[in-house]
Each structure stands twice: as C-alpha cells, then as structure tokens.
C-alpha cells in the first residue's frame, strides 16, 4: 500500500507539474492590476526613459474599441521585451513580449480599448526601461 501511495503521489506530481509551472510563469499580479502604475510596479519597472526610438503605429481614431490594430517596433539596441499597456482599460496591462534568438523587437497585434486612452509601450533593454505613448480616440467601447 505504501508503495502504491508513493507511486500515485509521484504520478500526480508529474501530471500536475507542467500546469503549475505554466501558471507560475504568468505574471498574475501585473495583469490583474487595475492601475497602470501598479501594473508596471509588478513588472518590476521603476524608472522609464522616454524614447523616440520606439515606434507605435495605431489608428488616430478607432471605430470599434474591441479591435484596435497596433504595430510596435523598437529601434533600441539589445531590446529584450516589449510591454503594451492601455492606461484607461479596467486592467491596463495588455501583453508582454519577450524576444530571443534572432527575433526582431517588432510585433503586430490587435487590442481592446475601453475608451479613449494612451497606448503605452515599455521596452526593456538590459537593465533599462524605455517608453513611448500614442493616443487613440475610441468611438465605441471595446471591453464590455
């Protein structure tokens, strides 16, 4: 019986470990933060330098806040990660992209915007953080 218990225990560890490991990877406190400053704090960002070397391409006016296309490119050397936040969303942190092994610091995606707001991009390069914003006028709420 003891051996079986041990084996069952071992089995459950093996089966459950990947799920727990994945859950641990996701920055829950940053994504569930209701204020932008709180989200950046949980991303362990303290100081950001405003940079013209971050390009944000998004529409000036978005008809539908549920689908706002965003293109982000960092021209900052050694860019490791690009985070996208929307200041006035119920949870401002949208995504954090980490690049490696030849991936360009570039991403295109589509995001939800609850109301007219700035899209804030934060780039991590080494131990430094750089930022740029782009205002988007939202005509129809997209968060529901």
């Amino acid at each position, binding site marked *: 019986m003891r051996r079986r218990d041990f084996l069952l225990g071992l089995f459950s560890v093996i089966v459950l470990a990947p799920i727990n490991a994945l859950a641990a990877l996701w920055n829950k406190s940053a994504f569930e933060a209701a204020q932008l400053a709180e989200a950046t704090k949980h991303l362990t960002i303290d100081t950001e330098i405003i940079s013209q070397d971050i390009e944000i391409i998004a529409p000036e006016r978005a008809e539908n806040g549920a689908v706002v296309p965003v293109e982000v490119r960092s021209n900052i050397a050694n860019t490791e990660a690009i985070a996208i936040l929307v200041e006035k969303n119920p949870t401002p942190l949208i995504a954090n992209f980490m690049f490696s092994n030849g991936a360009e610091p570039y*991403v295109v*995606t589509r995001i939800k915007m609850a109301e007219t707001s700035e899209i804030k991009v934060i780039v991590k390069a080494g131990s430094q953080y750089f930022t740029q914003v782009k205002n988007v006028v939202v005509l129809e709420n997209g968060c529901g």
Partner: protein
Amino acid sequence: MGAVDMVELIADKIKMRAQLTGDIVEVKVLMSHPMETGRRKNDIEQLIPAHFIQLLTATLNGKTVLEAQWGTGISKNPYLTLRLKGAKVGDVVEIIWHDNLGKSAVQSVIVTQAL
C-alpha cells in the same frame, strides 16, 4: 503522416504563414479564441467567465524566439505578426498557446520564399 493528420486536426485553432523576404522571415498568426474578459454579461445578465490565452511561445527549429504573456486585453481571435532574422526557407516555425482554463493549441509551418 501522423504529424500531418495532427496539424489538420488543430488547423482551425491556429492558422499561420511564414515567408522569407530579404533576410527577414515574417510570421503571421491568426488564432481562434474567445478572449473573454470575465466582465461581459450574456443576454440574461449573467457574467461570462474569463477565458483567455495567457502564454504564447514561438520557436524556430525548436529554439525559442518569442515568449509572450497576455491578459484579457488582446482582441478576440488574436492576431500576431513577428519577424525573425537568420531564418531560411525550409525552417520550421511553431506556435503554442496555453489559456487560463488549461487548454492549449499548437501549430507549425515551414518557411517559404515570399513571391
């Protein structure tokens, strides 16, 4: 052949394309996912539970090139473009995602020359 069958089975969850132009491979990915925020209500005023992709990984020939964490702010049926340097025709790009309900999808594509 087994691998081909599997790709077809999951083809509805992730559609992707990877094309080489110059020295850059552009990967375009379209995923099928509701991306529910957990704040929306249905017709009888009940909250629809949150259901969204949390983690997405892209690999090139098995090596990680992108690790993304997402919240509920990515639009329904997520779209993604990424660009890879040093990739060539015949290389394999794979995308895998995991959502908050423990579901996953995986898809891969071979890099082709842009026309």
